[in-house]
């Protein structure tokens, strides 16, 4: 219930092989007792980066999937960086692999669960 075990399969930190600093981290979920700024009850906080700009916001878990509601992110351009994670819209956890989908529902890549 607290911050030890994950309530949902997507929770935790997932990292990319390229760019190596790209990641998504699905955090705590807001409850009536303990809310999250900007998030509604049932939504979790999402942190992350595509290696050039942030990929943050809030997520709503549903079984082994989650849909993402994006917050503001910086708007740099980093030539030579493959910012595929920028178009993240939803994810599905499959063991230690997180499948990442864009708004059109197409799989754009995978992340692997970071050692915790």
């Amino acid at each position, binding site marked *: 219930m607290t911050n030890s075990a994950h309530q949902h399969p997507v929770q935790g930190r997932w990292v990319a092989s*390229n760019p*190596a600093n790209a990641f998504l981290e699905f955090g705590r979920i807001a409850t009536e007792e303990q809310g999250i700024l900007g998030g509604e009850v049932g939504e979790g906080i999402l942190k992350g980066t595509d290696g050039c700009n942030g990929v943050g916001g809030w997520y709503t878990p549903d079984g082994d999937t989650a849909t993402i509601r994006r*917050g503001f992110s910086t708007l*740099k351009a980093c*030539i030579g960086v493959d910012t595929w994670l920028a178009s993240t819209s939803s994810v599905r956890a499959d063991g230690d692999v997180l499948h990442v989908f864009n708004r059109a529902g197409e799989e754009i890549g995978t992340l692997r669960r970071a050692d915790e």
Partner: protein
Amino acid sequence: MAHPTTGKRFVALSAAVALGFGGALIAGPASAEPTTDLKAVAAEAFTTSDNIAAIGHGEDGTIVAQVVAEEKDSADVETALEPVSAFAEETTGEELVVQEVASNYSSDPVSAAGNAADAEDYEAHDDVVAGAGYVVFNGDQGGHCSIGFPATDADGNDAIITAGHCSDVGGEVYVERPSTANAFTDTYETAEWDETRKLGTFTHSQYGPDVFEDVNNESDLDPKTMQDFAVITVDESSGFNLIGEAATWSEESGGEDNLAADTTPITGVHDVTTDDIGKEVFHSGRTTGKTSGNIGLDEAYSDMVIGGIVDGYAPVADDAGNDYMVYGFASETPVGGGDSGGTVMLGDKAVGVVSGGIDAEGDLPALLWTAELAEGLTHLPGDYEIKTSEGSDPSPTATETADPTTPAPTPTETEDPVVDAELAVDPQEITAERFVAADEEQADAEDRGVTYTVEGAEPGSEVVFDTFAAGDDEASKSITVAADEDGVASSRIWGLTSADAEAYIGDYDVVATTEDETLEGSFSVVAGEDDGGEGGEDLPRTGSTVGPLAAGAAGLVALGGALVYVARRRQA
């Protein structure tokens, strides 16, 4: 790898290969013939081995492959390099140059190296304006952002105001070639910049430092620790000429690689308040060019901003995944990666720099979070003054809401925002000789033609002036002018001397359309000699024009003439 090496074109090792995008992404220039072939062998090499960091052109025309040191003798690297090696020998007569690197760019992906190779072909224009693109290198990191505002420090030295998240202190800045920016090419891969002449260096940079997690209630909100501003101190020896005008990113100015050729004026700084909600702002930057949207926020976004749509705070996530809090305001303005740091304007007033954005999604509009300039300037180390267009008041008091020296008999913004607009046509009767002018300069200098002035319009809003020759249903000329901070929009019309002055004799109707009303006026061009007469009340002239416009005056072409408009604004 501290810096881009001229002559070297890196090819990014792309996750595309590993992720099955169906081909390697190659961040190479569009020019340079041999690259096309190199792309093919590079793609093959990347597909064969994960330990090739980059393949590109080296100095002296050699082909260079960067290989992860630990794996340089492995079989897959050897196999991967075979076609590259063959290509090098075939095309250059030289052996492939193999460089060892600590790791491939998948673990060090910030190589914005590459297209400065084309610097030899590109010399940046001396004139640098607000909204132009730049490349910044900081250690081994590099990226593109946009110029917010040309400025001067307390000693009169040139500086540039941009976003703090674009670089830490020490970042070295180069001017990007406008025609190669996304605004015109729609891709990042064409970007070129002038590496031969450094524009300047980041000497101050603030982003946050307070983060989202630190905020538990409104008492935690503090503009002082929630900024996204930086100062680039301009290299005085660089010879760049900083101009206080904002790029429109028109095709014409891009094609000339001279954004200063088409700009909109900057007349001062405006503090955005709740009175401005609903007004249109525009942004200028290297990725999306000039885009606009209204200050406000779709309801679905409302919980992303704390403390208000204007004078509010929003978390803006950066490349490390941190959500730094930034003081500013929201507008529904589309922006893209590379627009960071760019200009945000309300009419002709500077209001902020691009801090963060959200793409449009479904029914939800795109969103821009602007770091607010009026507040940001107060947190910079030293007194910085935004450069303004020629002829406007550059004094720092321009940041105040009203300029007491303005002679316009319009009310100040705070007094009574609901004022009926009025159209003045001056003079209402003019001799044909006084109506024509050879060009704008003569029209202005000798006060030729007729001026239209609307007072009481919404500051920053658009006013359309249509001129109809008597009896015509179609306007002979039409022009749109933005109202200044006092709600004044002004334009001059005259007849070209390509026709006989008598061709213009007749009656004209003038219709001025503001956001919420239509105003009518008229004037007559009459026969008679140049009497050198005065045009009544004399409005101060400035150099800001939007014309002359191309001919196309239907009603007047028939008469063999053409009308020319020039927008004017009151001097602040």
